[in-house]
């Protein structure tokens, strides 16, 4: 049975070219890049070149990129690092109700240190209101953290305008670009972004490596202490093979960025049209005019998402409900609740996210199976 993988927002399959490159690097560049000797310098060179490559695509300086273990760590470093450098107490952070849990949970933690947090509401499409943002700003506001493209519903925030607001008010602007980097072409400097989180495994790179862009002049303290790696921003021996893979994946993603997002958009739109045609009482969540090309968040009335997931899995199809981090729990997605869903609706919602390895055959098969599964689900739920 062929596996049809439609959970690319959770993670992606590593590119063969990336994998082979990483294998070579793992084998050949094993010395610690902080070592003085030639072999150490060899590892360091791979790291420096990789960093320069990624920086080039973002049009930033390579010294502004700090490698982390993940997008979550980058988010932690952004929030905690800024708060640490401004001594926590009395500082105000503005974010949104639809952030990734690594932002929300970290903000909760920071509140215990005396940081004040405002979480902006979103409308039913997942957009924040810029006027509300402006009103929320006060003299003690040190940081505004906004998710660029939401991982569950795909809605894209207007970070250009938010960046302008932050610049005018001299507030540090952090963007969680984990889902948007490699899919949407944009440059942090043009949007006045001070901090930006990215993760390689979202665009066919390896897992276990992320990065935080820190614009020059942004004062931030490290949260992982020990050594002076990453310009004294993050201790720990650098993951050379993963860094190399990150760079290679970035190169590949950018080479197809426009064409691929266009292709995925067409495929996704085709899929949604087919679903809406064949399956009654299905609604699409998110800002349909302004969302990631590959994400489809669907609320399927009178059907349990969990059950749909299991049944599709038995048929060799991988999708998710909520986001991967909250799977394994019965908690409904905080993002969908923020849109105005009630618990029942949230528990009936699934997320389908396409990738570059998906084609029309995958979609046709998926929709066919979904139809069967949903019908079965609904028939059974009538009984219970």
């Amino acid at each position: 049975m062929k596996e049809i993988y439609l959970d690319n927002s959770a993670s992606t399959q590593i590119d063969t070219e990336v994998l082979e490159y990483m294998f070579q690097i793992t084998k050949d560049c094993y010395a610690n890049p902080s070592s003085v000797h030639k072999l150490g310098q060899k590892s360091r060179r791979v790291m420096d070149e990789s960093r320069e490559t990624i920086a080039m695509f973002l049009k930033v300086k390579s010294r502004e990129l700090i490698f982390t273990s993940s997008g979550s760590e980058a988010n932690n470093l952004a929030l905690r690092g800024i708060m640490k450098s401004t001594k926590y107490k009395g500082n105000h952070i503005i974010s949104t109700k639809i952030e990734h849990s690594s932002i929300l949970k970290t903000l909760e933690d920071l509140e215990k240190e005396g940081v004040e947090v405002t979480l902006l509401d979103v409308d039913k499409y997942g957009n924040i209101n810029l006027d509300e943002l402006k009103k929320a700003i006060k003299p003690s506001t040190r940081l505004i953290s906004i998710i660029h493209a939401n991982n569950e519903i795909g809605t894209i925030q207007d970070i250009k305008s938010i960046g302008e607001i932050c610049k005018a008010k001299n507030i540090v602007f952090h963007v969680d670009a984990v889902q948007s980097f490699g899919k949407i072409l944009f440059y942090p400097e043009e949007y006045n972004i001070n901090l930006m989180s990215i993760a390689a495994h979202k665009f066919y790179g390896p897992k276990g490596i992320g990065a935080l862009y820190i614009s020059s002049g942004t004062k931030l303290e490290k949260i992982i202490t020990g050594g002076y790696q990453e310009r004294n921003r993050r201790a720990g021996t650098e993951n050379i093979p993963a860094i190399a893979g990150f760079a290679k994946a970035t190169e590949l993603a950018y080479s197809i960025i426009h064409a691929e997002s266009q292709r995925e958009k067409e495929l996704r739109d085709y899929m949604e049209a087919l679903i809406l045609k064949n399956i009654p009482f299905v609604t699409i969540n998110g800002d349909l005019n302004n969302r990631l090309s590959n994400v489809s968040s669907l609320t399927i009335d009178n059907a349990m998402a969990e059950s749909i997931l299991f049944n599709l899995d038995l048929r060799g199809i991988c999708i998710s409900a909520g986001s991967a981090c909250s799977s394994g729990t019965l908690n409904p997605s905080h993002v969908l609740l923020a849109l105005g869903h009630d618990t029942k609706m949230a528990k009936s919602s699934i997320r389908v996210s396409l990738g570059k390895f998906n084609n029309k055959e995958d979609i046709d098969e998926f929709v066919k199976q979904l139809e069967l599964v949903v019908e079965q689900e609904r028939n059974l739920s009538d009984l219970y």
Partner: protein
Amino acid sequence: MENLKKFEHLLQFKEENKAITVAVGMSGGVDSSTVGYLLKKQGYNVIGITMKHWSGMDEYATDSNSKSCCSLDDIHDARRVCDDLEIPHYVVNLTEPFKNIVVDYFIDEYAKGRTPNPCMVCNRHIKLGKLMEAALKLGADYVATGHYARIKNGLLSTGDDPRKDQVYFLSQMKKEYVKYLMFPIGELEKPQVRELAKALGVRVHAKRESQEICFVEDGKYKEFLDTMTNGKISKAGNIILENGTIVGRHEGITSYTIGQRKGLGVSYHEPLYVLKIDSEKNEVIVGSDDKLFRNSVIGSDINLFTVDTVNDLNELQCSAKARSRDRLHKGYVKVLNDKEIEFISEDMFRAVTPGQGLVLYTEDGVVIASSFIK
């Protein structure tokens, strides 16, 4: 490449060079980086060596807009240039001696009301001292730098344009080390160096050069001194005329140097210039412009090149500079004792500043001796 034709003579490969190891003092700047490229093309066995001499007062505020040499960025640039050249790169940690020998001297001189010249001290003890020694210990036969300078008959000499004098700062170096030095771009002026660097593909060919003292960020040396001495060095005091009349107040003598006119905050019927700084009385003495001129300068801490003893300088006809950008003053030397000389000039020196270098040159630009103005 058309652009490289005029630099052909600098790019000549010589088989015999393969047996010679040259360590290039890499600062991450365009001059030293270009030297690396040239030496490699000429066939030498090249090693890159960078000194870590100062980590800054705030370890991670490596702001891209601040310009001081050899910050983390510069060491990184030096390393990347060596990567491009495929040569080994070593960073020698000289932060302790640099602090003790150069930085502390800098602070002490200002405290004494003098204007220090840290580059002269650094070149003697650190760069063409400890760093050079480290290079020689790596097996280098020579140490090359990007200075605009020449070696004539085993002696330091200025480049073709004596107005662009970098040997003034090198002039305190030990004579016995000159034989290890190479100045591969010593005959090229800055615009030519950048042109050559660009044609060679040197990654830092357009990099901005630091004009300030390398350990003081953005040239803010008053703030630096205050931070390093916890404000003790800056005490307010009087600005007075030579006859003792108080004409104003100063916030600390470190803000002043001889010949300074700006920033006195004094209104007077004629322009006033700093004539003298009295650190003991914490006074800045000012007067009219004509008072700044004198025809003799006394120098101590004498470093010799063309002669063996200080006494050999007696009655010597030569030229002298009392500042790096000074023009050459013709005159002769009078030896006062075995530690001090006096240079008597045919014309006048303006704003002679205690702490700066008094350097003697031959007609051809060869450095005879170097001293510090008393």
